[in-house]
């Protein structure tokens, strides 16, 4: 992920575009992506892919070597109540992480699946 991608991920995903203000982090969860292994990552923007392939895990250590993980954060705007889910697929490598760029769902596409 390039510098611009990192900047966008850090400063824009959690920004309410309607109210022009920062959203609050409402929920956070780590998932494993067992069907995606090192060297085989391709970006998916369709929610169905994540519904089929994400498995909840407690901690990074639960993810076997070479397997992708995916962090999910739900942001909520304190003013208008809008919710946004940001997925952050990454490859955990020992103490480091190789991030592939975040995927944002602004219309609650994954809310029922992720935040049951």
């Amino acid at each position, binding site marked *: 992920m390039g510098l611009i991608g990192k900047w966008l991920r850090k400063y824009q995903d959690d920004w309410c575009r309607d109210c022009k203000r920062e959203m609050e982090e409402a929920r956070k969860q780590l998932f494993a992506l067992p069907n995606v292994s090192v*060297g085989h990552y391709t970006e998916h923007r369709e929610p169905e892919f994540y519904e089929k392939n994400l498995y909840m895990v407690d901690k990074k250590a639960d993810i076997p070597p070479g397997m992708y993980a995916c962090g999910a954060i739900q942001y909520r705007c304190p003013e208008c109540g809008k919710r946004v889910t940001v997925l952050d697929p990454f*490859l955990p*490598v*020992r103490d480091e992480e190789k991030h592939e760029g975040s995927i944002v769902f602004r219309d609650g596409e994954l809310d029922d699946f992720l935040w049951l």
Partner: protein
Amino acid sequence: MKTPEKVKKTNYGYLLGYILIPLAVAAVSVLIGYLFFKDGGPGAVVCFMGGPAAAILWWIFAGGVIYKLAQKKMLKQLDGAGIDRRQIFYSDGCVVSMDMEQGKIGLLFHWNPFEVQVVPAGRVTRAWTDDGAGGPGIMRGTNRVSFLFEIDGIKIRVNTFISNQRWKMNDEKVLEGISKADLWVHVLEEAQRRGAGV
């Protein structure tokens, strides 16, 4: 395809032939030029340039081409023997395939390309990752990441990342190489454990 008593990483006949036959061809070509085209002309150019040039091209390219063709043949041979080759890793010096169900490791080496060796996974004695980390302080980095394993005491190194320059340990390419190496160590250990009946 065979199950060897001892894994053979280098076929010395092939290696010597690879080096010496083009050398002999170049020498004969130069000798012909010297004996029959002393006065120069197109024949002399062909003899003095053609043979050595062909030898150099052979040394640069032929090894890679032969290895690529051998890889294709390996896949056919594994399929023919009913060995699952979905888990396979292609490296510059070696191809490793793993059939977890049957506990079989398929091996093909760059310098032994005419022999696909299939070894029971239980014969792997250990497997580990070498991240190649070196250098002091901010210079710390690597130019090679590999996983290694021993079969009957013979060490086999498979590179997952190789470069002619040093990269930081947290560089994306290095991280990917380490992850691939760790994955294969995990696979080999699992196969070894199954092979040992644990």
